[in-house]
């Protein structure tokens, strides 16, 4: 069996490929190795997915997973138009309570897009998938307001690369998802601190947060108003809402997904992250989106995307097993919690992991030296990043930025030498995480994603059970963050796939709002 990409990425990949190129240029007969980019590769991977549930046992089309959706559409068992009608009906019935969407197309426009979606032989990879990108991702047909007065009324004249890619694969944007002000905090009424989007598990309780800043995408997917969506993460903004709402999300290695056409917060830490209900669904979206984009040079020159869909498919065998032998480490303190029920849930999760095949839980790992200094402000932050992009609106009226104003003015105060030192510290932290942390384990269970956001390493979140919200005694999902070395997405998907083959926490559906 081939090893996962986190074990084979090295300059040897580059040198090997250059050797092929040189041979070909010299008139040899070498054919370049097949690169796993593009629709052909994705469609090939999709054919190997597990069989979907029979349609007869699913009484609501919005309950289908993304994997089931694309399989059933490809077979002709479900029409994209019927999926559109089911999702729009649900949005129109319940989004007054959830407040997950900032802008939506008309039903007629969606049906027309569904009919026009490419079928392209075996069917385009996302045909019929009803998707909810965050509202900082450009859409040529819908406002893109970034949750902020700064962008109020902004209508891009082109799609972000990720939206264009999803649409060209047959995906349908059922709405733009509400978000925290300029990608910070939970979604609010623009320019105020009044919350809008509700947690899908507590739609009648405005106080219980959906988390942010990808609040609306999290709620839309958890509440079955979209089959999957896209969030963005600079500091936990995909995995935060994912964990708060029982989702499985992946923030991939920096550069894996184009950021062209995304309102920036930090040029150096922003990531697009697929948000979904299962590891396989998140892998399908990543498979479609992980490709080079000439408009975003940060995506160029990376090793080719591997087969994420296979990695996220349960490994066959007598008992759930991770596809590759995997050492799982635990961040210091993660097993402890002020809430004893949370602590017990985490201990139980670790016991379950230990019982799975190909897993060795190595216990608490030691953190790299100077961890605290390298992961906290100022060296672990990105204070100066947002200012340059926003000079014009800052001069126009600082009140447009609401409670997020300090973040956008910091670049006027942080010195250039500190900015350089922050980037040096990132390189040092990357080196130490590689050599002093991921020498002990392949995957880390951790509370915070911060160190991995700053260095651009992949993080996946998934539900591990349910707990009781102390204030209202409501049952809410609890999740975990798993971090891996650069290009370790396959490893993360493999662990999540094994876990989700053993449990059904990810399949539990929140109750509909009353009224």
């Amino acid at each position, binding site marked *: 069996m081939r090893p996962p990409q986190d074990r084979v990425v090295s300059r040897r990949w580059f040198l090997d490929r250059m050797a092929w190129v040189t041979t070909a240029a010299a008139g040899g007969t070498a054919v370049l190795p097949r690169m796993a980019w593009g629709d052909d590769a994705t469609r090939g991977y999709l054919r190997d997915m597990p069989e979907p549930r029979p349609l007869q046992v699913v009484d609501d089309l919005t309950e289908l997973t993304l994997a089931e959706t694309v399989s059933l559409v490809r077979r002709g068992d479900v029409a994209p138009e019927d999926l559109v009608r089911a999702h729009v009906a649900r949005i129109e019935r319940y989004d007054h309570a959830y407040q997950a969407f900032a802008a939506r197309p008309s039903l007629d426009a969606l049906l027309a897009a569904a009919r026009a979606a490419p079928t392209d032989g075996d069917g385009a990879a996302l045909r019929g998938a009803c998707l909810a990108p965050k509202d900082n991702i450009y859409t040529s047909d819908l406002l893109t307001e970034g949750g902020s007065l700064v962008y109020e009324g902004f209508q891009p004249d082109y799609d972000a690369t990720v939206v264009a890619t999803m649409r060209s694969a047959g995906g349908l944007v059922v709405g733009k998802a509400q978000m925290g002000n300029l990608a910070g905090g939970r979604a609010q009424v623009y320019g105020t601190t009044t919350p809008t989007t509700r947690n899908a598990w507590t739609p009648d309780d405005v106080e219980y947060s959906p988390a942010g800043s990808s609040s609306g995408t999290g709620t839309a997917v958890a509440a079955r108003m979209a089959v999957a969506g896209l969030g963005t993460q600079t500091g936990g903004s995909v995995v935060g809402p994912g964990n708060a709402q029982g989702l499985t999300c992946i923030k991939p290695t920096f550069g894996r997904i184009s950021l062209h056409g995304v309102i920036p917060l930090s040029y150096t830490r922003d990531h697009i992250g697929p948000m979904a209900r299962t590891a396989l669904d998140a892998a399908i979206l990543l498979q479609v989106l992980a490709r080079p984009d000439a408009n975003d040079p940060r995506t160029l020159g990376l090793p080719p995307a591997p087969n994420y869909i296979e990695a996220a498919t349960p490994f066959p065998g007598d008992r759930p097993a991770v596809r590759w032998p995997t050492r799982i480490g635990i961040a210091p303190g993660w097993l402890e919690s002020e809430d004893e029920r949370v602590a017990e849930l985490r201990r139980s999760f670790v016991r379950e992991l230990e019982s799975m095949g190909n897993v060795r839980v190595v216990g608490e790992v030691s953190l790299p030296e100077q961890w605290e200094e390298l992961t906290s402000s100022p060296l672990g932050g990105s204070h100066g990043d947002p200012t340059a992009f926003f000079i014009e609106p800052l001069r126009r009226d600082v009140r447009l930025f609401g409670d997020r104003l300090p973040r956008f003015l910091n670049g006027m105060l942080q010195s250039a030498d500190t900015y350089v030192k922050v980037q040096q510290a990132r390189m040092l932290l990357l080196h130490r995480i590689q050599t002093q942390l991921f020498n002990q384990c392949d995957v880390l269970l951790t509370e915070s994603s911060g160190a991995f956001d700053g260095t651009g390493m992949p993080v996946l979140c998934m539900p591990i059970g349910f707990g009781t919200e102390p204030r209202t005694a409501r049952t809410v999902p609890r999740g975990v963050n798993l971090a891996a*070395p650069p290009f370790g997405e396959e490893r993360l998907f493999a662990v999540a796939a094994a876990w989700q083959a053993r449990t059904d926490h990810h399949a539990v559906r929140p109750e509909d709002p009353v009224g």
Partner: protein
Amino acid sequence: MTNRQAPSPTDEQLDVYIRTRYALLGVDISVLPESDPDAPMDQERLLANGRSILRQDVVAADFEIDPQFNLPVAHPAPFVAWTEEADR
């Protein structure tokens, strides 16, 4: 080890610096209320944040880091494809 000899500036001195810096760049913070905890933002909170950012510069300056092995890199993760660090 810090070798700074000059006394640290006071809050008042830093506030003057912050206001001047914003004004120099054409940013007017006087449109915000001076102090209103119920407002999304006020000048008092903004200045407190600014002072914190300025003082964090000192923390960063004091942090010693070997410049020969740790070049400034905006997005470091993809670099493992070049440095063989993944081949442990």
